[in-house]
């Protein structure tokens, strides 16, 4: 990774600047910026609907950004159609032409390619152009034969694409793309349709191909393991927004927020308070940590990887907290133990250690200060700038919420609602407004879910129940829990 820092801007092959893509006014990709270095293997990682495929399609040119610019090799290609971009794509379902055989599929791009023939001509104004020619049949056939060797499909030239297995079709799709020697190869969940064994083999083959060809790979997947295995850099996305950009080790060891921690690998996430520099309070206990620079008593999230927790048997004085074992399961190289930390909150903690525990057993837990990952909370309270609907009613995301506020209709106001004051209704019609669950993270003793209203506002909600992603829910807030204050800043502006 140290090498990468030395590289200067000139080696940026792709750059996205403040790119937004909206469908009917709904942002799918929201103001993202990142750059990719030449020869890098970059993975766009995130759950379905996070905007990763749209980002790839923006680079390929199948979608036009609503706002922002895209550069390839320093050239602004935002308005250049896909067929003139120096990129090739391996599609999710391969998209091999059914009316052509393997050879013709691979040769498709080569037949359209024009290369300089060595001669030039000068037009009336004195500009010199290179004359272009098509590739000869021999050149095409040699290139196709070489690429078939790379993907290990020699002798398949005249096969019908429908007669190939999933893995073979996958290879043809890759061959069809790389035979054009693109600057960037875009791969849209290319292994999604393969079985587990085949996936593992293809992962290794793709990595080898990347090394051999030296082409920049941009890879889209929702599989965190695939991303960790293959990439130089991972870009984690959620809800059209980039959560973190980093190398696999960094994304795993130092997740930028609770979402990244939860999405990549298993983790314990607790809400806590930063008491002072190097001192944190969570799960009803004080802990030493290595973080500083937070405000006193600032609410934070603490993330602990299960493999970073050690189990101490008996009354070991080193134990930081004591807990009661709920279950302990042998997983081959470790025991997966779930325990409840002693105290009133009853926080659940997941432990991966090579010590066997019995259900009901009292154990002590030890965590190294450096293994407590502390991060600022993305939001402390739900806050919306809106208008009064009428006296004693405020508009929130298009819904009419009764509240205790006698400002007149149309007055600009700021509304604040605590996470645990938002009530979730199973039946969407029982709530005042409807919303879709975007994410759900377990925080030891409760779930924190993010629910996106139809107005694209994300409500953070603390709840005892687990909700699945994409569930439709109704949102209700008691009038006494809605804090409404007059919003004055608008007057200044």
């Amino acid at each position, binding site marked *: 990774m140290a090498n990468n820092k030395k590289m200067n801007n000139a080696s940026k092959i792709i750059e996205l600047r403040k790119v937004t893509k909206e469908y009917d006014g709904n942002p799918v990709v929201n103001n993202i910026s990142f750059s990719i270095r030449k020869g890098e293997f970059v993975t766009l990682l995130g759950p379905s609907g996070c905007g990763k495929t749209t980002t790839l399609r923006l680079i*390929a*040119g*199948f979608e036009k950004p609503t706002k922002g610019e895209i550069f390839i090799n320093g050239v602004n290609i935002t308005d250049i*159609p*896909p*067929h*003139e971009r120096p*990129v*090739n*794509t391996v*599609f*999710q*379902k391969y*998209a*091999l*032409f*059914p*009316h052509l055989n393997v050879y013709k599929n691979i040769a*498709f*791009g080569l037949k*359209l*390619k024009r290369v300089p023939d060595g001669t030039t001509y000068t037009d009336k104004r004195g500009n010199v152009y290179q004359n272009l020619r098509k590739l000869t049949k021999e050149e095409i056939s040699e290139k196709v034969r070489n690429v078939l060797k790379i993907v290990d499909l020699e002798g398949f030239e005249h096969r019908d694409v429908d007669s190939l297995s999933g893995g073979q079709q996958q290879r043809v799709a890759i061959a*069809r*793309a790389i035979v*054009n020697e693109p600057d960037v190869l875009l791969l849209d969940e290319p292994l999604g349709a393969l079985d587990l064994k085949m996936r593992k083999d293809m992962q290794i083959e793709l990595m080898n191909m990347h090394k051999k060809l030296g082409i920049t790979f941009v890879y889209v997947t929702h599989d965190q393991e695939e991303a960790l295995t293959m990439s130089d850099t991972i870009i984690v996305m959620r809800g059209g927004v980039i959560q973190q950009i980093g190398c696999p080790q960094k994304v795993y060891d130092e997740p930028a927020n609770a979402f990244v921690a939860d999405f990549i690998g298993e983790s314990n996430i607790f809400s806590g308070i930063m008491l002072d520099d190097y001192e944190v309070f969570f799960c009803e206990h004080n802990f030493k940590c290595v973080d500083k620079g937070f405000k006193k008593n600032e609410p934070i999230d603490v993330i602990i990887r299960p493999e970073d927790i050690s189990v101490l048997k008996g009354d070991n004085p080193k134990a930081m907290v004591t807990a009661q074992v709920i279950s302990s399961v042998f997983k081959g190289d470790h025991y997966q133990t779930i325990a409840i930390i002693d105290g009133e909150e009853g926080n659940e903690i997941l432990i991966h250690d090579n010590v066997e525990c019995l259900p009901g057993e009292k154990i002590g837990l030890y965590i190294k200060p450096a293994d407590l990952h502390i991060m600022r909370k993305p939001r402390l309270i739900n806050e919306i700038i809106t208008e009064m609907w009428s006296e004693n009613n405020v508009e929130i995301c298009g819904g009419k919420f009764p509240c205790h506020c006698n400002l007149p209709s149309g007055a600009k106001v700021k509304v604040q609602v605590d996470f645990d004051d938002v009530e979730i209704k199973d039946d969407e019609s029982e709530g005042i407004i409807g919303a879709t669950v975007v994410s759900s993270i377990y925080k030891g003793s409760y779930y924190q879910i993010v629910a996106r209203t139809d107005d694209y506002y994300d409500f953070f909600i603390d709840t005892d129940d687990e909700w699945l992603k994409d569930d439709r829910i109704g949102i209700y807030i008691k009038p006494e829990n809605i804090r409404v204050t007059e919003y004055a800043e608008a007057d200044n502006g």
Partner: protein
Amino acid sequence: MAESFMVKLKNKIKNFRITRSVFAYPYILFMLLFVVIPLALILVNAFLVDGKLSFGNFIALLRDGASLSTLLLSFLVGIITTLLCLVIGYPVAYILSKRAWGGIIVLLFILPMWVNFLIRTLATRAIFEALNIDLGLGTVIFGMVYNFLPFMILPLHTTLTNIDKSYLEAAQDLGADAVTVFIKTTLPLSLPGIISGVTMVFIPTISTFAISQLLGGTYLFGDSIYNKFNNGLYGVGSVMSLIMLLLVIVSNIFISKYNKGEASKNLW
């Protein structure tokens, strides 16, 4: 023999149960009476001259210059009509397949088909007469195209809307501009639609009667079959019908050969 047959029949009646296949009997009976038996009669009639087996009807047809030139003219009208339908229908189907509201417009194209074709044709004739346009081969072809255009647009529209967009994107991705994408992917992938459209227009055109008589006073193959039967020339009429039947069979083989897989699933 007869006794054992009666026993079997009795057993059949005794053991008669309503199974699923029973529901097919009325249909099978209908097919026998109105499709299989008439076809058999045509076949027999074609080889029968004065109650004797003979190829006389075939020879009579070959010697009948008028009938042969009618057949030739029918082919000509059929080919022109089919080409016109394809040239008009393909762009329409293509544009409509790109639009979300395309399906509604296609429905509008089909709507006139619920009006009886005789009424439509008579109305067309009335319009021509009102506009003082002389009836002739041109008006016949106009009537044909007007009548059969929906049969071209429908299968084309179905095929074109079912083409996976990712093929077009893949072609673009590999360096094809809009025209090349069309020629190298859309066109070959819509071939099944073209073939079923062409057959569905060509076969009915050469066998139609009435339209040509009403709109041009010319006789096409369908009309001459009608006339032969009307004039009691069952033998020659049957031979001509057999030729039609042969054309239908050949075109069906053609369709099924090119419509591997998906396209044969839908009716068009």
